[in-house]
């Protein structure tokens, strides 16, 4: 999951930035500028067509978790690392469904599978060199996996639960990941899995998930001096929690991977935690790209939505939902959960989200394989809820008057959603109070099992276009962990578990063949109301008038493709 991270204290962030800036390194020859208007002159041409040159300014709501890809697993980090640190595979640099296609990146071709889907084999392209000139070797893949495990990559479970020996290596029980065998001479890499795992190619392709880096990279976090990578861009001029630059990698164009174009503009990324200012900056052309993970605030959405040559709302595979902890009263009661699913006011939540929320009731978003086509089990999500029926269900459950703590982040519109949700719970007979947690601390708090959150806000942005991504992390009983638990509802349903056991091995390329089975499973999950989804994100693709909007690629997985930015 790509969690949308926001710093805890702007004050602390600024203080840290000053501290680091005061003693940090410089020396970059970057031509970037903090002002969009300060770009250099443009020239025509370039390896992938269109105008090249200049600097585009990107405003992000928050800094990536880390610019070291062995640690980061955020939307802000992913959109950077899929351009700076290519992995074995990649998703195509294309808008819409075409952007979900897996293409070979550092591998010469898609991996071949054998041994009943338990062995993956691929060959590393010969002659590739990292941005510093170091040759890319097959053994770098093994090193990258080991480094991610050693440094505690936020999505390490993708590896520890699948690759042979990865779990032991992560726990310090093994000196190496035994399931990966790399031969530098031939460039051949063989990966042995514990069990067949159909989404393994997706994991190899997701931006920044398992990037290549030289084996000489220090085995320690390097957020301010990220490891050297191979890709169209290099990271420069890092000011922690303030911003950084993405400069065009001058060595990439001559060894460009088919389907992964070289960059056309240098990029300056700066953090702007106030979404109103963020949107104003782009409206006024003092910044070029709005953070696709943010929502344009109500005060500006009317103005922005009129800018049809600069703004487009793009449906993305991100689900917002309330989790209901089945191990805590009152949600250990089926009727109480059904009451919540019946009462949630999705049209109101959509309005509070300034139109960026598309009401829905299923965990799998509409563009995801497996999204059910049946009507929602507890009423039309586009109509007002049946509160009277919900009240009746609460009475029947015998849970009326039960205290409920609603956990929520404290930023807009998530806080407004939580306030509305708490009011709904009170309206149907519970005694709900709100517990707001600073954005930067929220998920780590609710992911700690001993906190036993009763109910609260959660969301999931697809890492790859496979329903496994949602279920493996959010609903699978095996995802219940003491720390880093993302199965917040703590559900461990035998039917779901048996279905997942059958569905996980289906290869990513064949997931369409089991779409109806995923649909049935997702409908079952909605019926059980372990989670109560209420909508899907409509992401803003919003650029300044300097940028050629028609040429920009908006990846369904990584958002704005910075390598496609070019001046008009």
């Amino acid at each position, binding site marked *: 999951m790509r969690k949308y991270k926001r710093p805890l204290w702007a004050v602390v962030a600024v203080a840290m930035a000053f501290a680091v800036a005061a003693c940090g390194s410089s020396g970059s020859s970057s031509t970037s500028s903090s002002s969009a208007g300060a770009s250099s002159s443009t020239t025509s041409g370039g390896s992938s067509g269109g105008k090249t040159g200049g600097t585009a300014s990107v405003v992000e709501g928050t800094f990536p978790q880390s610019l070291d890809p062995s640690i980061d697993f955020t939307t802000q980090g992913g959109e950077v690392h899929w351009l700076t640190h290519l992995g074995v595979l990649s998703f195509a640099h294309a808008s819409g469904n075409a952007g979900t296609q897996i293409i070979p990146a550092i591998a010469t071709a898609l991996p071949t599978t054998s041994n009943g889907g338990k062995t993956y084999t691929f060959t590393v392209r010969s002659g590739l060199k990292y941005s510093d000139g170091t040759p890319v070797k097959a053994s770098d893949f093994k090193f990258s996996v080991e480094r991610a495990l050693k440094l505690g990559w936020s999505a390490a479970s993708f590896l520890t639960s699948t690759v042979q020996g990865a779990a032991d290596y992560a726990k310090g029980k093994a000196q190496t990941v035994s399931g990966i065998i790399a031969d530098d001479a031939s460039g051949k890499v063989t990966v042995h899995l514990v069990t067949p795992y159909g989404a393994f190619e997706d994991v190899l392709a997701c931006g920044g998930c398992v990037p290549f880096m030289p084996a000489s990279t220090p085995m320690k976090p390097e957020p301010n001096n990220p490891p050297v990578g191979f890709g169209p861009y290099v990271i420069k001029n890092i000011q922690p929690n303030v911003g950084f630059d993405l400069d065009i990698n001058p060595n990439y164009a001559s060894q460009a991977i088919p389907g992964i174009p070289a960059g056309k503009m240098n990029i300056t990324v700066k953090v702007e935690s106030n979404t109103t200012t963020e949107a104003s900056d782009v409206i006024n052309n003092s910044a070029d790209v709005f953070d696709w993970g943010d929502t344009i605030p109500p005060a500006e959405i009317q103005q922005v939505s009129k800018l049809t040559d600069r703004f487009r709302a793009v449906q993305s595979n991100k689900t917002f939902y309330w989790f209901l902890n089945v191990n805590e009263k009152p949600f250990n009661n089926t009727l109480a959960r059904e009451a919540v699913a019946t009462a949630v006011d999705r049209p109101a939540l959509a309005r*509070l989200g300034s139109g960026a929320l598309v009401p829905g009731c299923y965990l799998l978003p509409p563009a995801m394989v497996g999204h059910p086509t049946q009507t929602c089990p507890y009423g039309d999500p586009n109509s007002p809820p049946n509160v009277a029926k919900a009240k009746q269900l609460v009475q029947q459950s015998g849970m009326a008057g039960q205290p409920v703590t609603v956990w929520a982040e404290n930023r807009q519109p998530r806080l407004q959603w939580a306030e509305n949700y708490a009011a709904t719970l009170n309206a149907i007979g519970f005694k709900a109070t*709100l517990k707001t947690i600073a954005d930067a601390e929220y998920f780590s708090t609710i992911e700690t099992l001993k906190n036993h959150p009763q109910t609260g806000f959660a969301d999931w942005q697809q890492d790859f276009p496979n329903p496994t991504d949602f279920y493996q992390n959010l609903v699978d009983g095996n995802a219940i962990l003491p720390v880093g638990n993302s199965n917040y509802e703590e559900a461990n349903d035998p039917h779901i578990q048996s279905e997942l056991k059958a569905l996980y091995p289906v290869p990513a390329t064949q997931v369409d063949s089991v779409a109806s089975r995923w649909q049935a499973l997702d409908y079952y999950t909605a019926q059980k109301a372990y989670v109560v989804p209420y909508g899907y994100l409509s992401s803003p693709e919003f650029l300044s008038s300097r940028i050629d909007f028609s040429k920009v690629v908006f990846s369904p997985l990584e958002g704005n493709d910075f390598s496609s930015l070019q001046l008009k």
Partner: protein
Amino acid sequence: MSTTATGTELSAESSAWADAGEELPPGLGPYQLAWRRLKRNKVALVFGALFLLVVILCLLAPVYSHDIAHTGPNDEHVDTALNQFGLPIGPTWHAKFFLGADNTGRDVAVRLLYGGRNSLQIGAEATLITIVLATLLGILAGYFRGPLDGLISRVFELIWAYPVILLGIALGVVLAISGLDLGFTRLSGNSLQIPAIIIGVIYIPYVGKPVRGQVLGLREREFIDAARQQGLGHMRIMFSEILPNVASTIIVFIPLIMANAILTEAGLSFLGAGVRPPNPSWGTMIGEGIGLLPAAVHTMLVPGIMLVLCVLGINVFGDGVRDALDPRAKIRIEH
């Protein structure tokens, strides 16, 4: 000693009265004299009345909510008060949504009054905590001196050295998650008493240090020696002899601390470390309104004006009280 002034204090009062260029009326105690002076300060009284008006309006919040606006402070009217983009309606000048709606379609006027209750409650509780603990610690430190004074003074300096807002944020965030266990009771993370306790504690040195300084001088005075000679115990001397003599200083501090406590609460709530949503306070309302600028200015402007009026009322009235109690005093809360 009773609250009747001793010869020394009377001579001080006479001197103060003379400094003010007025003739000392016969048979009046120091507080009666102060009241006479305060009554002549029309500006202070007007602002005192303004503050009183704000308090009365806030106390009438349930009446306004139930009988006039017919909506509660946390009742959302998403369908009627927000447009399709989630932008709230402005002032209607009708009973319902008189001052418009906020970002979740709640009545701003109703939340303004309930928010005022919360802000004033926190201000009052914080002031009480500050005054009681600061007086106690200040008297103990000044009277006993030595190691106890050293310990208490260092604690004062430790708190004083930390910026008020940063200390408040740090404590507010931690306690919002874990709540506060006071031994005899447990406060949940969204209790109004948590910001009150935080603010009350961080202002202790601002009162405690001046009280301690005054007690250091008083303990050397003849009437304290006389009390010792009469065999009075430490507790009796501290609270019967010394406390009445620092009372005017403490009284002067009350409105100043109250005003600062309300402002600090607003600041902490604005930053998300004070009153927890969905409970309203003027600070949280301003914070919520910021995100709606410039399209819905009323959401930030209305609580901002109320906050200014309230704090201005207390401050000017507090200055009048200070002038009345001791025309020569120059007590200020300085951060």
